[in-house]
């Protein structure tokens, strides 16, 4: 099931809330866990068992680690066994076809791999269980003895299919005991509604523009339309993904959980390093914590640090999908980040701030071309169109049509990519009397009504993370 659907908002959510809040405290985790299984099984009636199996697997490994924590050798073996298991499952379902294709092509083999659909959310929940096992091994967190609490950590529907990737320590205490006030519940509801509006009103609508541009052969694109198209995609993926994360956080709050923020105005960054501190923060933290730092991080000189960064960015790219274009996309960012560490950041500090913004946006936009064009020749052609080498001129009627029917939406998107709306809302909230609250509530219910209208008459509502 996805959040941005009528089924979720008007059936699943009210019923789950009802059951959760009438259940006595000791049953609340069970209700939430059962609801999460229904949520997952709705779209993945078979793979729900895979998720349960990998949950049970690392639950058991966690207990074993706890039992053998004094014997480092055994503990290490358990750790490696668990990681091999998790990476094995991820590798089998996500990367087997990709690896086989490449081996076949380079070594002239003819391996064949069954073409299985990718289990939804597998990259998110395996990363969560791996973080748990590593943290138990390191002694950073205590092993979870209660199977239900652990199951809830992995399967909790708010963050199950598209993150944020929560490290166990962040919510260990909330899994056992949590309270929700009416105000917190409302704060969560508001976040949920804003997330829904981001996804349904903003991302889906501008996504239509990108899907039209993407359907045009890139050698027929004018320069203007190529830029318009990739800007549209940049907005689509940002509002889609951050909207999803907001919905996850909002839902979490409604059930008493506090998840980390996953996006912080990434398009307001002045360098690529900064962009990645603001984009999909939970993934960045994960790689930092479990790959970059274990590899030595920045403690062994700039050269070693650069190699570590390249490794991290290779993996970050690959995490987004089993395809070379994602690897290139990741390494591309890795190279800019290395360059920034060596030189660029110091240069950027000497020039006007605007240079930093423009530099970051251009690099990110070009990056999205690699992200979105699965085939390299197509990406190359698209870049040629962006830089005026496609021979189609700067502007034509098609480009004018898309501009004239989307500029207003683009303006809204641009404003919503900055903290301005949040600042305006903060002004409103500061008036601590009923009127301020009522206006804020009216805005939220308005967004909910509009989102409902867009869901009922739905034309285009993609789930973008099926390859993650």
């Amino acid at each position, binding site marked *: 099931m996805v959040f941005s*659907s*009528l*089924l979720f908002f*008007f*059936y699943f*959510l*009210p019923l789950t*809330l*009802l059951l959760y809040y009438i259940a006595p405290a000791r049953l609340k985790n069970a209700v939430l866990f059962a609801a999460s299984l229904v949520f997952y099984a709705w*779209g*993945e*009636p078979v793979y729900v068992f895979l998720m349960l199996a990998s949950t049970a697997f690392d639950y058991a490994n966690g207990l074993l680690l706890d039992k053998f924590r004094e014997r480092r050798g055994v503990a290490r073996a358990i750790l490696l066994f668990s990681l091999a298991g998790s990476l094995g499952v991820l590798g089998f379902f996500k990367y087997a076809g990709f690896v086989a294709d490449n081996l076949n092509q380079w070594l002239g083999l003819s391996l064949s791999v069954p073409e299985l659909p990718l289990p939804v959310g597998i990259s998110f929940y395996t990363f969560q269980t791996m973080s748990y096992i590593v943290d138990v091994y390191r002694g950073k967190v205590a092993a979870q003895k209660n199977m239900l609490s652990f199951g809830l950590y992995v399967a909790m529907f708010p963050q199950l299919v598209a993150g944020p990737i929560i490290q166990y320590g962040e919510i260990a205490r909330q899994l056992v005991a949590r309270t929700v006030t*009416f*105000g*917190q*519940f*409302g*704060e969560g*509801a*508001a976040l*949920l*509604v804003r997330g829904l509006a981001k996804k349904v009103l903003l991302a889906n*609508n501008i996504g239509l523009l990108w899907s039209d541009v993407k359907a045009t052969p890139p050698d027929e694109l004018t320069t203007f339309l190529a830029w318009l198209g990739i800007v549209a995609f940049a907005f689509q993926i940002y509002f889609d993904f951050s909207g999803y994360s907001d919905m996850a956080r909002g839902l979490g709050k409604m059930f008493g959980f506090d998840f980390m923020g996953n996006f912080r*105005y990434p398009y*307001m960054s*002045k360098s690529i390093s*900064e962009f990645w501190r603001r984009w999909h923060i939970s993934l960045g933290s994960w790689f930092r914590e479990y790959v970059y730092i274990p590899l030595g991080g920045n403690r062994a000189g700039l050269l070693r640090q650069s190699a570590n960064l390249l490794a991290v960015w290779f993996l970050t790219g690959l995490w987004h999908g089993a395809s070379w274009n994602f690897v290139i996309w990741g390494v591309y960012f890795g190279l800019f980040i290395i360059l920034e560490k060596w030189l660029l950041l110091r240069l950027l500090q000497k020039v006007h701030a605007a240079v930093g913004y423009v530099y970051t946006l251009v690099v990110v936009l070009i990056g999205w071309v690699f992200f979105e064009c699965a085939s390299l020749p197509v990406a190359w052609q698209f870049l040629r169109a962006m830089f005026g080498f496609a021979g189609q001129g700067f502007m034509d*009627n098609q480009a*004018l*049509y898309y501009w004239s*029917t*989307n500029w*207003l*939406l683009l303006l809204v998107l641009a404003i919503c990519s900055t*903290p301005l709306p*949040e*600042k305006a809302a*903060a002004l*409103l*909230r*500061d008036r*601590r009397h009923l009127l*301020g*609250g*009522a206006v*804020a*509530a009216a805005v*939220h*219910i308005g967004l*909910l*009504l*509009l989102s*409902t*209208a*867009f*869901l*009922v*008459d*739905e*034309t285009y509502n993609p789930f973008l993370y099926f390859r993650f």
Partner: protein
Amino acid sequence: MKDVVIVNKANPWEGPLVALLLVAFTGGILGWNLLAPDQSFSEAENRSLKQLPAFSVHSLVTGKLATEVEKYIADQFAAREFWVGLRSEVERALGKVERHGVYLGRDGFLLQKFTPPAPGDAEVKAAAIHAFADAVPSLRTYVMLVPTAQSVLADKLPPYVSGSGELVYRDEIRQLLDERIAFVDVYPALTAQRKQAIFYKTDHHWTTKGAFYAYQTLARQMGLEPQNEEDFRIETGSDAFYGSLYSKSGYRHVQPDSIELYVPRAAQTYSVEFVDEQRQSHSLYELDQLKRKDKYAVFLGGNHGLLHIRSDNQAKRKLLVVKDSYANSLLPFLVPHFAEIAVVDLRYYEGDVSRLAREQQYSDMLLLYNVQTFAEDPSILALAGQGQ
């Protein structure tokens, strides 16, 4: 850049108010959806609504059940019509001028967007027509591909939208057809009358007036003496026609069309046999349909696989028409010119058309489609003789 830290002094009212509203709204809709009886048909959208799918283990495991339940929920959603209208208003406010393949044009016109078919489509369709001509060489074959409003009234399209695609595709077909086939070009006649109401504003069809001008062109090309507009009494069948483009687009602010009927002043007697339905009639009109939603069905009562029109006139020629719904409003004009007219709609006809043509010894054949149906509809390939 410094991190954006916005001091959020929570307004004590906001949280509880949003919480109450969200719970009341989602819970209220849930209750409404569960209690209200399901609808089977949407008048405004002119389509059957999805019903609760049957449960089976197979459909559950394959995920088909999930998809169908979600369609069911959307179709049976509380106050569906309100939401559809709301969405179209929001999109209009944002400056969008296209919904579900329909352009919101100038002067209240809705126009059907043309999507060119895959390359090679014209060749395949032309080959099917040639194969048919080869199979029944005695027929004089006329092909009329009618450009829709988006070509003829291209100035009604929204800014920067090109209406040339249809004509490009039609001319491609025209070039491919050999000299045995007479191509009937109604574009000049329609363009000449473009100031008149020759297309509906809310429907993808031409009006009776548009069909009439096309008929005149066709008759001349067939060597017949066309009737004039004075030969008819023009009656308004309905002035509250919200057509297919209204249904499809969701634009609810547009004005309705009126449907005009051309009633011949001279008496005509003919019979109409609806073969599949095993039914006879003495009229090409079904006036009851004017009370329903899809009022264009007043012509012939909609589309049928095969019907025969037999007249008591002195005409010698017999005509076979292979057509889409554009023909429905034009056929009445042809009645006095032919002793017999067989009308085949390949989308519903299951027989072999070339066999029908040979057995019944028609003298002429008219292939009449609007360009868009011709481009989209694969059933035309049945002309090549594989049957369906």
